[in-house]
Each structure stands twice: as structure tokens, then as C-alpha cells.
């Protein structure tokens, strides 16, 4: 690959990692607070999975940029300000209630599986290998969400109302997930990454079926969020200030 394509792929991988890491951080906020013990444990482990995926993408970016594979992921996580992050807004939103948390994760996981299907046949072998690994793990995420959506959507009056409210609140943010990722265009042309816009139909089909099975209806009228990933919000700033505090106060800190 030429250096220009390298830089595009590093940008793309960093955005993928940013989505995973920020979602991991949000979901980890449930540790010790989830409504039942099993889900408390489950969510901590879903978050750990995403953390591992973020590290995998960041390590690949490190190689492309000739950075230290061991140290670069920490640099990206702890020493970038909000303006340098490229995650979608969906993952930055405050954790909300349990219904909001489950639904956001399901929206994200379904898209991730579709993207990974494309990345498994990437023309860049290290990316294809990582995608094959992560794909297998993500199938468990989708399975977890698929079991919970109908339980809450068709559970009690309150659980249904909360799911419907979460759906109405989250829906506008799904639009941004289908905008091209940073660096994407030349990667699509080179057969290294799938076109994000092309994943929307498959995502919608899966989500439509899941919502129907949970007696939920997507809102018909809404204002889609289509701002670029380079424009972050105060939600991300708050999250970063907590996540980065220790590493910035003491850059030599070791576990």
C-alpha cells in the first residue's frame, strides 16, 4: 500500500476504535449498577470485549503509522482531546436507563457485524484477520441483545414504555452511523473496506425485524443527526475528562 492509503486506513481504524472504546466506557458505567447481577456481569464483559476490539484497531493503526504497537493505543485513548476523536454521537450519549443502554448497544452491534462481514474479505490481510476474530465475538453480542429486546419490549407496561422512549430518543442518531468513515473513500476503491452507506439496508432489515418482535415502532418524524464525526459534543468531553484523568495526572502510572 502507498503511504497515502496507509494514512487513510489509519484514520479509518482510529474511528472504528473510537466507537468501540467510547461505547466500552459508557457500558462500563453500569458496573455495580445494573438492574440484575447477571446483567451487571454481562455488561462489564461486553465492555471488555469492545475494549479489546478498540485495542486491536488501534494496534493496526500503530503499525501503519510506524508507531509503537504497545504504547500507541494508550496514547490514542488518554492523550487526545475531544476534537480529535472520531466516534459517532450515538456512543457518546449519557448512559440513560437500562432500556436505552440495551437498545443503543443492539443498534451498534448489528452494524458492527455487517461491517465486519465486509472487512473479513479486506484486501489488507492484517485487517481481514482481525475482522474474522472480532466477528466471531460480536455474534455473541447480537445474541445477547436479541434475547433482551423482546423481554423488555413485551414485558410490563413500564418496560415497554421505556423501550419505546429509548427508541424515539436514539433513532435520530442512527443516521450518522451510515455516513462514510474518515478515510473511507480510497479504501473502498482499493477493496480494503466496505462502503458504510451500503450497510444501511441490511441494518434496517435486521432492526425492523427485531423491533417488530419487541412490539416497538421506530418514529416516523425525526430530525436525523448527520454532523461529521469531527464535530464532537459536550457528552464526549465529560466522558474523556473522567477516562483520561489518571493517565494525564500521572503519565507514568502502572497497574
Amino acid at each position: 500500500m502507498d503511504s497515502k492509503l496507509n494514512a487513510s486506513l489509519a484514520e479509518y481504524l482510529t474511528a472504528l476504535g473510537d466507537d468501540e472504546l467510547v461505547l466500552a466506557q459508557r457500558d462500563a458505567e453500569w458496573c455495580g449498577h445494573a438492574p440484575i447481577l447477571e446483567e451487571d456481569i454481562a455488561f462489564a464483559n461486553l465492555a471488555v470485549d469492545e475494549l479489546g476490539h478498540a485495542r486491536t484497531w488501534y494496534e493496526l493503526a500503530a503499525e501503519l503509522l510506524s508507531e509503537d504497537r504497545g504504547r500507541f493505543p494508550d496514547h490514542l485513548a488518554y492523550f487526545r482531546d475531544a476534537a480529535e476523536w472520531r466516534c459517532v454521537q450515538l456512543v457518546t450519549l449519557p448512559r440513560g436507563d437500562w432500556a436505552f443502554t440495551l437498545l443503543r448497544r443492539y443498534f451498534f452491534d448489528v452494524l458492527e457485524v455487517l461491517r465486519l462481514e465486509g472487512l473479513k474479505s479486506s484486501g489488507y490481510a492484517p485487517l481481514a484477520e482481525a475482522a474474522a476474530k472480532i466477528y466471531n465475538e460480536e455474534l455473541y453480542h447480537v445474541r445477547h441483545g436479541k434475547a433482551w429486546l423482546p423481554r423488555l419490549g413485551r414485558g410490563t407496561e413500564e418496560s415497554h414504555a421505556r423501550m419505546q422512549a429509548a427508541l424515539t430518543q436514539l433513532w435520530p442518531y442512527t443516521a450518522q452511523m451510515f455516513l462514510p468513515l474518515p478515510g473511507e473513500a480510497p479504501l473502498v476503491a482499493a477493496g480494503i473496506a466496505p462502503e458504510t452507506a451500503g450497510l444501511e439496508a441490511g441494518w434496517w432489515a435486521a432492526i425492523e425485524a427485531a423491533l417488530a418482535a419487541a412490539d416497538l415502532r421506530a418514529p416516523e418524524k425525526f430530525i436525523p443527526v448527520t454532523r461529521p464525526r469531527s464535530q464532537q459534543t459536550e457528552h464526549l468531553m465529560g466522558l474523556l475528562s473522567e477516562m483520561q484523568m489518571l493517565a494525564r495526572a500521572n503519565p507514568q502510572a502502572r497497574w
Partner: protein
Amino acid sequence: MEKLAVTEQEVWAALDEVMDPEIPVVSLVQMGIIRAVALQGQQVLVTMTPTFSGCPALEVMEEHIRVRLAELGLEATVEKTLDPPWSSDWISDAARAKLKSVGLAPPHLHGGDFIAVLDAPISCPYCDSFNTTLKNSFGTTPCRMIYVCNNCQQPFEQFKPL
């Protein structure tokens, strides 16, 4: 007297004594985590693959590998590979029996399609009853699922097929 050179076989035997930090009855070799060993003088390159990519025990494993091989006078470099992705089919028969002995149901053999076996009945590691119910597809680590046995009423975990 000249010191005898360490053989690759001895390296493998030493690695078979490095236990999985989260399941200390099975070794990294028995779990299929160690993929290759390349010995060159006092230097050894150990290639390992994570069971799950977010496994929090990975760094501990690397450290334990280096410490154990240092006891043989070797300086170990640990490299990670993701190709081919780790498969639960690689867990040895001996390790499967050990998992069961500590109450962890071993994963079904799946021959490459782990999704196909996910709904297959799981037997309770305590009473062998197949009358068990999945409670959650995530347990105390990313690699485990929680079940309950309807026969002996015992909750238990299964190592996930992957």
C-alpha cells in the same frame, strides 16, 4: 562442563506448566493458546493467540510465559497472532475433563461453525443432566456463559464455543 542447549520440546513442556490465569487447572498449551515456539540459542519466540481479543488475562499470560522460560535460561519474546482465530475446538481432551472437574462445562466441538452448536443441549458439569437452561450469554469473563441446572438446581458456567 558445557551447558546443554535447551530443546524446543523442553520449551513446550515448560509452557505446559504455565496455567491459564483465569482457569488455573488448565495450561496455555492445553487451551490451544500457544501456537508456535521458535528457539534460537538463548532466544525464544513464542507465538500465542488470544481466546477472546479483550481477554484481560493476556498480559498476565505473557508475563508468566517470560518468567517460566527465564527459568530455563531463555529470553522469551511473546508475539500475538489472530490468524487463524482461536477456536474452542483446540482445547485438548485432558483440558476438557479438567474444566468439567471444576464445574465449568466444556464447549461443544463445532468443526468451525460455532453458531450451529449454540442451541445444542448442555449437560450440567455436576450431575450430567441435560435439563439445563441458558441464563445469560455472558458470564464472569467474556469467554463464559451462565446456565442453571433444573435437575440439581446448581448454577454453572460453560466455556463458550468459539
